[in-house]
């Protein structure tokens, strides 16, 4: 191709890029991109949704779908719902990727309505094929009732997740009720961050890479220290991981079932200490792992994790610690650490706080901040009454 032809090609491309029209679709057309579908026997149905400021734009070789859907759902079942997971699937990513929106600590009585917002963005190549169905589909994955029974296809292992959240919520509500009833207000204030509006739990950035990749030559083996809850049914014994800078690869932890029950899955919590000695609870990895009573086994992960500070700067990993976050037994029951277990596990006040912070405590702290002790009392009473309703 001659220089003149090249230049003509580049200029045409530039013009196309500049003049690519911004496509805004009317609300009824957005239905072609976004679909909400619940099975006919679902305990929740959608009674309305609003797309608000959603837009669909073309940007270079990609199409950007910015969706801000506000759904109104109704409990049409016969039991109070205490947790819900909605599955968000995009045809472009299936089956390799998907998303979900979880609402724990709901207390929605039969006939009551509640809002769920889905704020998301999908970037896809314009050239990608498109089927007749909606580009983004939202459906129910699991609904957890107050009797800890569940409904839904549970493709995302949501029942277990919702159950852990609900048990943590009950533990923390009980703890706060005890503090209130016992007049231990200074402890209550401390527990709820003194109602400080600016308090935000420690944040970190995460990147999780799955699939085969090149191993860095800078990798070093780093020992994983166990944090033990004395009364836990499963105890971590120790382990190791390959660490390079802010990357952790192939973590492995040896564990022992010290209970008399058969374990079917274990969620190992991870704590990362950075170069300044600050601990971050990085989350928990659940593994399906059948372990008989008094047996030893190990948990290993194939993926690579990259940690960064909220500013985006890589976090230097100085130390790795692990603890048993929750255990699921063969009889369907789930164990979570009690407040006493957490207190006994570590002398580090901040780490103890991080381990004890559940979604429910975060919600109650927000109520305490806005409405004070009276608001908190009222909310605890409301939830207690909701849970005591016959199923």
């Amino acid at each position, binding site marked *: 191709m001659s220089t003149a032809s090249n230049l003509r090609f580049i200029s045409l491309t530039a013009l196309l890029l500049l003049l690519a029209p911004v496509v805004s679709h009317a609300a009824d057309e957005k239905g072609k991109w976004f679909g909400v579908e619940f099975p006919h026997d679902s305990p929740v149905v959608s009674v309305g949704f609003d797309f608000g400021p959603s837009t669909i734009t073309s940007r270079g*070789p990609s199409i950007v779908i910015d969706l801000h859907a506000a759904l109104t759902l109704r409990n049409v079942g016969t039991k109070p719902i205490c947790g819900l997971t909605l599955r968000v699937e*995009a045809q472009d990513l299936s089956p390799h990727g*998907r*998303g979900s929106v979880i609402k724990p600590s709901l207390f929605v009585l039969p006939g009551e309505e509640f809002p769920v917002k889905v704020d998301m963005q999908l*970037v896809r190549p314009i050239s990608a094929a498109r089927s007749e169905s909606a580009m983004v589909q939202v459906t129910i994955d699991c609904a957890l009732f107050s009797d800890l029974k569940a409904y839904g296809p549970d493709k995302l292992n949501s029942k277990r997740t919702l159950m852990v959240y609900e048990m943590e919520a009950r533990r923390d509500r009980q703890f706060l009720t005890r503090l209130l009833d016992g007049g231990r207000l200074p402890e209550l204030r401390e527990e709820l961050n003194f109602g400080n509006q600016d308090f*935000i739990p420690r944040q*970190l950035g995460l990147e999780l890479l*799955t699939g085969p990749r090149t191993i860095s030559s800078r990798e070093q083996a780093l020992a994983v220290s166990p944090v033990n809850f004395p009364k836990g049914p499963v105890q971590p014994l120790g382990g190791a991981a390959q660490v390079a800078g802010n990357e952790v690869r192939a973590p492995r932890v040896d564990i022992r079932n010290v209970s008399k029950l058969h374990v079917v899955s274990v969620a190992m919590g991870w704590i990362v200490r950075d170069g300044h000695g600050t601990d971050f609870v990085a989350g928990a990895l659940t593994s399906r792992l059948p372990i008989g009573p008094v047996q030893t086994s190990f948990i290993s992960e194939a993926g690579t994790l990259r940690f960064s500070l909220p500013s985006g700067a890589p976090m230097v990993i100085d130390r790795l610690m692990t603890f048993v976050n929750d255990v699921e037994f063969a009889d369907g029951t789930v164990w979570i650490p009690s407040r006493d277990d957490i207190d006994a596990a570590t002398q580090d006040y901040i780490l103890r706080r991080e381990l004890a912070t559940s*979604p429910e405590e975060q919600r109650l702290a927000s109520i305490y901040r806005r409405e004070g002790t009276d608001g908190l009392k009222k909310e605890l009473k409301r939830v207690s009454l909701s849970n005591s309703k016959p199923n």
Partner: protein
Amino acid sequence: MSTPAAEHPSIEILSLYATGDLPFVQRFRTSVHVRHCAACEQHVLTFQSTKAELRREAQGEVLTGYEAIADWQALEADMLGNIRVGVAASRCIENVGRRSRLGFRLAWGTGMAALFMAGWVARVPADESGRLISALRHVVGLEQPAFNGTVLRSTRDGISVKARGATLTILHPQSAVISMSGPASVTARYVDDDSGQVTITNVYGQ
């Protein structure tokens, strides 16, 4: 009328003017100058007389061998002068037009490049640019091969899963706490200001 030396046409331009080989606009400009500049007029006259002499020689006024040898120095000077004029003229002809063509192409190319860059910045997502830069760095050996599996990532505004060239990002407020929630899952947790409810969003890769 005297003209500043800086404004004199070059000797090449004058030689071309003398032989009538300049383009129209330049010829007009040079003639205006020569009419008012005695020095340049003298150069032009010299070129023209040399040209006339050469033409005369070409028309048969050929020196005999003896005369040529007798007036060898004059002949040598003439020949060298002719060669210099010829070389200068050819160089001048090469540059006349080329400069303007080059200038035009350069301006056009710069304009198109600026337009292209503006289009790229305005229209192409940062992800795509990053991928292109990464690919270029890979080509020149500055970067390891790109990762082709599923990538889960947290940013200040959301958690995303990237696979098969598409990216799904579930957005959250900046106060959200990020954690991992499975071997291939990233979670963001926040309290929704409007409803007061806790919302937990997840992205999953396989």
